[in-house]
């Protein structure tokens, strides 16, 4: 299969989440202009930072005149989950040249991880073509995010009330669309329920620390309730194969 075809497969797998992201990008641009920020600031943030939920949190903090170190450290904490995605993808990128890994690192967002990771699982992405599928997904999100930011900035100046429409709900629906296919075992339900309950209980923690703590609690609960200790059985299988 050609590079273009692989990239197209990545983009096609991303279409539902791209549609979900459009209102979110418009909202970001219009919020930035409703805070009286320069249009260039919003456009540059989407182009260089490329992190939806962190960009929203940063806007809120800028609105509160928070110091720069608070904005940057909050961004760090909100995006810390990407470290966990990266840890999961290491096995698929270790053979790739550094320049490719730089680009893939820049483009590592929830949606591309959610679109491409299952493709490795079912074999429609592998060591040879996985990075092309990934690039197709990343580039289509990148174009969408930057175009909708610009449109949001422009329309936010034309339609002032846009930031109160509730466009953030599109992100909620998109994330639900990512979560539900996982819920096939009890362990994932327990992970969901414990992360959700913790996020409400810990919502008052400063700088979004509740998010990080709830994520850790959810992962831990899923991990201990997971009955499939396949790690050892797989190891046994491979040992047996070596013996043959």
């Amino acid at each position, binding site marked *: 299969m050609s590079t273009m075809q692989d990239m197209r497969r990545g983009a096609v797998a991303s279409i539902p989440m791209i549609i979900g992201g459009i209102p979110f990008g418009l909202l970001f641009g219009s919020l930035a202009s409703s805070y009286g920020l320069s249009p260039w600031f919003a456009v540059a943030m989407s182009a260089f930072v490329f992190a939806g939920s962190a960009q929203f949190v940063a806007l809120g903090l800028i609105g509160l005149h928070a110091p720069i170190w608070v904005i940057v450290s909050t961004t760090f904490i909100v995006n810390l989950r990407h470290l966990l995605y990266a840890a999961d993808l290491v096995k698929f990128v270790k053979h790739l040249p550094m320049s490719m890994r730089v680009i893939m690192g820049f483009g590592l967002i929830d949606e591309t991880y959610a679109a491409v990771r299952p493709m490795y699982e079912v074999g429609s992405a592998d060591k040879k073509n996985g990075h092309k599928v990934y690039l197709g997904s990343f580039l289509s999100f990148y174009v969408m995010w930057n175009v909708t930011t610009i449109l949001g900035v422009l329309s936010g100046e034309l339609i002032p009330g846009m930031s109160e429409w509730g466009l953030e709900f599109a992100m909620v629906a998109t994330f639900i669309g990512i979560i539900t296919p996982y819920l096939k075992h009890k362990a994932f339900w327990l992970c969901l329920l414990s992360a959700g309950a913790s996020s*409400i209980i810990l919502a008052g923690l400063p700088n979004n620390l509740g998010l990080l703590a709830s994520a850790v609690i959810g992962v831990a609960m899923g991990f201990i309730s997971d009955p499939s200790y396949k790690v050892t059985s797989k190891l046994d299988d491979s040992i047996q194969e070596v013996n043959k």
Partner: protein
Amino acid sequence: MTLWQGALIISGMFAVTFGVRFALFARADKVVMPAFIEKALKFVPVAVLTAIITPMVLMPNQHIDFSLSNPWLLGALVAFGVGIWRQQQLLTILVGVLVFFIAKYGLSL
């Protein structure tokens, strides 16, 4: 905000965001993931995304609102149901968004 402050905010945000995403990729050929980490990582998307959206859905105005007159909760429940039932991302997103906007604007008319 001055141009200088804006540039500083964006470069700071870029540095930490890219740093977090790239750190492990940079040493991907040397990093060895222990098996139990691999096992825990598969729970990351569900845990993280749930922790992001649950407060948005249950506390849209900073207070807990469990009633079905909360459009966020109604939209999320319907999206969740559709997602479990059909497992089609686009359908989940569109139905959820539609129910949310009907609940938010349709019912208040």
